[in-house]
């Protein structure tokens, strides 16, 4: 035990970070070649497909766009996705592949779900196996899982071009970036992960739900479906919307500790790898390493803290007669005394405390939002970890593309703040940072904060908002705070006791998701356009280097400061009070 955490937990956390880094570095280099239009191993297969798509779309793939044109293309594409998905969900009842004859969704639920998936949030107001047909899951949700992630990656690439080019108003072609992200990156990775998960027991079938005659003589309906294909992109695209209501806690989505490792690596893989893509594309790998280091230095302590709080357990259960001590077995031994101990409510035996807590940190550090344990049943401080990671603006790895472009906004703020401290004009990668960039960066950082606090306040003072609360006391407030934090930062996980499938929550959460996505994405494109137009300034003695440990430390400081200062009062009313109530016995 060290810091209240078992040796086995440290080993599993270390293994996770090693596997992640070992895969992220080469993938990052590959993605840089893809987005730069260089030949890759897959060009022979996908090159003709890419050209065919452009021909059918009537797109000249080498014609580049200004930031405004790029933004119009992003919005039109997202809007098309919304209309299509909304239509599929409302019309589900008359569409094929619906063996359980599930009816169409109500308009408010369809609105919420469609917004949720086009914004890469994947908030689940719906209940998976009880609400959606195989057709809706496969043709509706899976498609948006791919393209919403690809949109995020495309916008990131536009921002990188803004940083590296000078004296131009061109940022690349959205359609080219979108198609490349899907064809060369998301599709092949998803196929690999889907087949690997299938080998471990994740189901992939179009059979209607099975009925089993149990040993005690009852009938048990077992929901089935084409899960593996959706599971893979759900994790890789930082989407997180489960095929089943309980997401990756469900044994058919996540059957073994090994499938759990594959899924956890998939959560952070693309956001982490994009740091290395960035370093390569700006021609200075140290810049990418510095950002990856900043993310990792925030992530690991938060993951460890979540493990510690969950392992400490719930004193109420101990008073009721629970034995919460963890009995460790070495290696693959399983003596008759072995148990995970700690706070096991809402957690699966095969994952125990450690893999549930690491997952909770990873899924909220990235804007994934899948769960393999019920966050509402976490200890108050264990649940504070995922909440705070989302409140940092989903920049600790963050979403596919959106995580790094959000992080670069924080980098711009950091060079500005550091510049103020030493009295120099702030620069980043040879570009002077001016008032316009800082204004846009401020919108991108502060708007989600305002959405979270404003919407939470509205919900907890109105009867419609209070009606959805499940747990008594401070935890009830935390449920609402968590929901709007998750929506406005495009995460998608929940304190799922909250009854969010009501017109009030469906509408308000959907608006938070929309504004939280596009009022970060659009300012980022504006920054990209403004930076591309500037002249490059040569490095001088007055330039603050942005690849040093000092800069990494200031960057982390800025992220923590903004997150904690903005949310300290709200967090005191929720998790902190709940914790004090728990320990007073």
């Amino acid at each position, binding site marked *: 035990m060290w810091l209240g955490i078992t040796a086995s937990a440290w080993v599993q956390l270390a293994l996770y970070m090693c596997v992640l880094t070992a895969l992220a570095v080469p993938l990052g280099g590959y993605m840089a070649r893809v987005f730069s239009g260089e030949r890759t191993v897959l060009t022979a297969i996908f090159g003709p497909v890419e050209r065919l798509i452009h021909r059918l779309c009537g797109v000249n793939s080498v014609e580049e766009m200004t930031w405004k044109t790029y933004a119009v*293309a992003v919005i039109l594409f997202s809007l098309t996705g919304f209309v299509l998905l909304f239509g599929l969900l409302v019309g589900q009842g008359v569409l094929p592949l619906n063996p359980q004859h599930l009816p169409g969704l109500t308009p408010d639920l369809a609105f919420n779900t469609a917004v949720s998936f086009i914004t890469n949030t994947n908030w689940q107001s719906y209940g998976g196996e009880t609400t959606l047909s195989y057709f809706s899951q496969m043709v509706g949700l899976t498609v948006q899982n791919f393209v919403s992630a690809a949109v995020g990656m495309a916008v990131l690439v536009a921002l990188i071009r803004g940083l590296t080019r000078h004296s131009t108003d061109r940022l690349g072609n959205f359609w080219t970036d979108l198609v490349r992200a899907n064809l060369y990156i998301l599709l092949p990775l998803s196929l690999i992960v889907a087949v690997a998960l*299938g080998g471990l027991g994740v*189901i992939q079938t179009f059979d209607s739900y099975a009925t089993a005659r149990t*040993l005690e003589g009852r009938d*048990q309906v077992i929901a089935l479906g084409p899960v593996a294909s959706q599971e893979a992109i759900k994790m890789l695209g930082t989407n997180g919307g489960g095929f089943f209501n309980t997401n990756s806690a469900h044994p058919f989505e996540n059957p*073994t500790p090994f499938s759990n490792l594959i899924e956890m690596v998939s959560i952070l893989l693309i956001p982490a790898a994009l740091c290395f893509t960035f370093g390569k594309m700006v021609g200075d790998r140290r810049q990418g390493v510095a950002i990856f280091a900043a993310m990792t230095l925030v992530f690991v302590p938060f993951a460890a803290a979540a493990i510690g709080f969950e392992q400490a357990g719930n004193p109420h259960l101990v008073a009721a007669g629970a034995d919460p001590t963890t009995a460790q077995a070495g290696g693959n031994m399983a003596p008759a005394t072995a148990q995970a101990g700690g706070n096991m*409510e809402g*957690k*699966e035996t095969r994952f125990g405390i450690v893999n549930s807590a690491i997952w909770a940190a990873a899924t909220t550090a990235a804007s994934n939002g899948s769960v393999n344990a019920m966050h509402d049943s976490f200890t108050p401080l264990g649940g504070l970890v995922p909440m705070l990671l989302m409140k940092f603006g989903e920049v600790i790895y963050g979403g596919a593309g959106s995580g790094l472009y959000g992080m670069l906004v924080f980098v711009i703020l950091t060079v500005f703040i550091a510049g103020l401290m030493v009295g120099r004009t702030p620069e980043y990668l040879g570009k002077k940072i001016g008032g316009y960039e800082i204004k846009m960066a401020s919108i991108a950082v502060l708007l989600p904060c305002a959405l979270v606090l404003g919407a939470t306040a509205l919900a907890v003072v109105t009867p419609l908002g209070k009606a959805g609360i499940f747990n*008594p006391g401070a935890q009830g407030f935390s449920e609402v705070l968590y929901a709007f934090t998750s929506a406005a930062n495009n995460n998608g996980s929940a304190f799922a006791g909250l009854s969010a499938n009501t017109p009030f929550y469906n509408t308000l959460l959907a608006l938070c998701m929309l504004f939280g996505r596009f009022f970060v994405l659009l300012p980022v494109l504006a920054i990209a356009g403004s930076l591309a137009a500037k002249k490059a300034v040569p490095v001088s003695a007055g330039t603050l280097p942005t690849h040093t440990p000092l800069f990494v430390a200031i960057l982390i400081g800025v992220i923590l400061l903004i997150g904690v200062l903005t949310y300290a009062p709200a967090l005191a009313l929720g998790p902190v009070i709940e914790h004090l109530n728990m320990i007073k016995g």
Partner: protein
Amino acid sequence: MLLITHLRPALVSMGLFTLLCGGLYPLATTGIVQGLFADKAKGSLIRDGQTVIGSRLIGQNFTQPGYLWGRLSATGPAPYNAGASSGSNYGVNNPALVTAAQGRIEALGVTGPVPVDLITASGSGLDPHISPAAAEIQVPRIASARGVTPEQVRAAIHAATEGRSFGILGEPRVNVLEVNLRLDGKIK
């Protein structure tokens, strides 16, 4: 003008991605996964003759004293409803959490601290496993209900127990349904 120029690629590309990512990709995955892992692809179902009696990955509700019991399940309307997975979502201070735990301890009829996983609900409500400690505590009850020796019960439990994957990942665990199938002599 700008809008109209980009409307065509928006519509056409969304249609093509729907074909590619929503049609070809899941169908290709289905072909490969069903070809390589036919049994797993269809839910790892267990059959007794022609009748499906469960899935190796999905827990069942056990209440009779001669069976090993699994985690509590918060699915509605009945526990272990694999058509509607759900956790309890009880917060740590919710009195219902303690009530459920006390009810389980009473039903178990054991004295002394009970392994925490046996008195709490799983995340999915369908957890097929319990910890080895949670199985061991039930051995005397099962043995006396079935009129067999504790060692015979332990042998069934041992055969259905897995350690950490690769000695590192996850937690040691006992597959509850498999133990009970062994106790019933349905698998040897």
